[in-house]
């Protein structure tokens, strides 16, 4: 099951990189993307606090960045 996921993911990644050349915008088209709410880390504190809650209350953690950084949350 896990190796199947890895294979699918790797294929997607390679396809993605190859297709990347055709995607994207010119520098002068970045007006909307430059908005605060479009930044991936625009709500750093919220995301960090949520991650901590879900790390303590659920069986999986991580995804946006590193899964590391432990605590003995019970």
């Amino acid at each position, binding site marked *: 099951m896990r190796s199947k996921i890895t294979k699918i993911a790797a294929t997607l990644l390679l396809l993605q990189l190859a297709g990347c050349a055709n995607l994207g915008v010119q520098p002068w088209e970045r007006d909307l993307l430059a908005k605060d709410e479009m930044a991936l880390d625009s709500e750093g504190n919220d995301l960090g606090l949520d991650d901590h809650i879900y790390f303590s*209350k659920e069986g*999986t953690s991580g995804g946006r960045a590193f899964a590391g950084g432990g605590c003995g949350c019970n």
Partner: protein
Amino acid sequence: MAVGRLQVAVVDAIKADQVRSKHMKKTTNIGAALATATCALLHPYASANDILEDWQVDTSLMYYGETDRVKAVEAVVAGKKDFGDEHIFSGKLVIDTLTGASATGAAAQATAQTVSRPSGKGSYTVTPGATPLDDTFKDTRVQVDGQWTQPWSDVSRITTGLHFSTEHDYFSVGFNGSYAHDFYNKNTTVAAGLAYSYDVIKPEGGLPVPFAIKTAATGSSENYDDDDGYDDDDDDGNFSSDERLGDSDNKSTVDVLFGLTQIINRRMLMQFNLGVSQISGYSTDPYKVLSIVNDQGLTQNLVYEKRPDSRTKTFAFWQTKYAMNFGAADFSYRFAADDWKVDSHTFDTRLRINLTDKTYLQPHFRYYSQSAAEFFQPFLIDGQALPEFATADYRLGEMTAYTLGLKYGMELDNGDELSFRVEYYQQSPKNAGFSEPGSLQDVDLYPSVKAVIAQVNYRF
């Protein structure tokens, strides 16, 4: 004659001008008045924040409260400063305190139970039908993180970070490093990173022996003492701690992460992350137990749990952000799988709605589902051989959870941002296929956990 009249007009004009200029000299500091007027025109909401000028500071205070269970208060101060030329330092300080009760893993019973505390000092009674909770988790934790980013070349940058967390029974220290490279005019960014973390667990009362009986656990309804002179129910409080393996143990975690960020078009960007983690060391929860029940469903003993000492986790994460005219939409999906057989799906979406230039509303919905760990058992059956690993911790069992939240943010006159967030989080553990003997059928072995989150943020 036209010319004559013009010349007269011009002379008049000169005279008028001279009168004007004499008048103006009386108005001494036109410059200052003009400067003030310019300020009012260009900077109607000027910020007087000079001291922390180049730092961007985000502070948060959060309350998390489960009905009848754990309550936590967490305070975060995060600061970020650009030292020029894209050399950026960001640091974070987190302090949280935990109070209230947590599920121990013991099964609910149709009758009252008496359970001892982890320290071995004293016990408490559980009402019939209720899930046994342990309320001695009053803890304060301090966490400090630091991160430094700097350019590696025109189109790439490196990041290194340190992490440190401590509480009375747990200590964690770690470092991480990553490299990011931009392609196609920064439309595509590829990143790779590595993290290592070393944790030390020093549980209250020492490390329990796996599957050892938790002292002074009785299954009977009233305080029970037979005539053998042995204080089975510890009403004298004289029992010493259970047999222990030692004071502390440790655990190492190695994470590897690959990420791809791609701008799709003028309104949309996406991120794909893949990660693998390898954990080795003490992964058991020293405070959790399992109930050993007989064929009537009555608890005979409580024993400590045991989890494998290694875990390999993988995840795939996809996120997309879409700019709308009135705000932005954010949607993400994460699939995770590991060799404990805990597989999970997480859907998370936020919709930012800009009400005005300076205020916004943001509803939030999250759905989570996970499958039970291979070694998850809600209880053990008396007489059957003990499995190699077992846990009744519902957080490793089958469950779904959802979060519904709303955030309101506003920009103040001085440019700072204030926001409020309220969320409702409900977990619904499910029966992963275990049949319940006897009286266990009359109790809810999988109660929902409901929590409310309230948070206030201030950014300046």
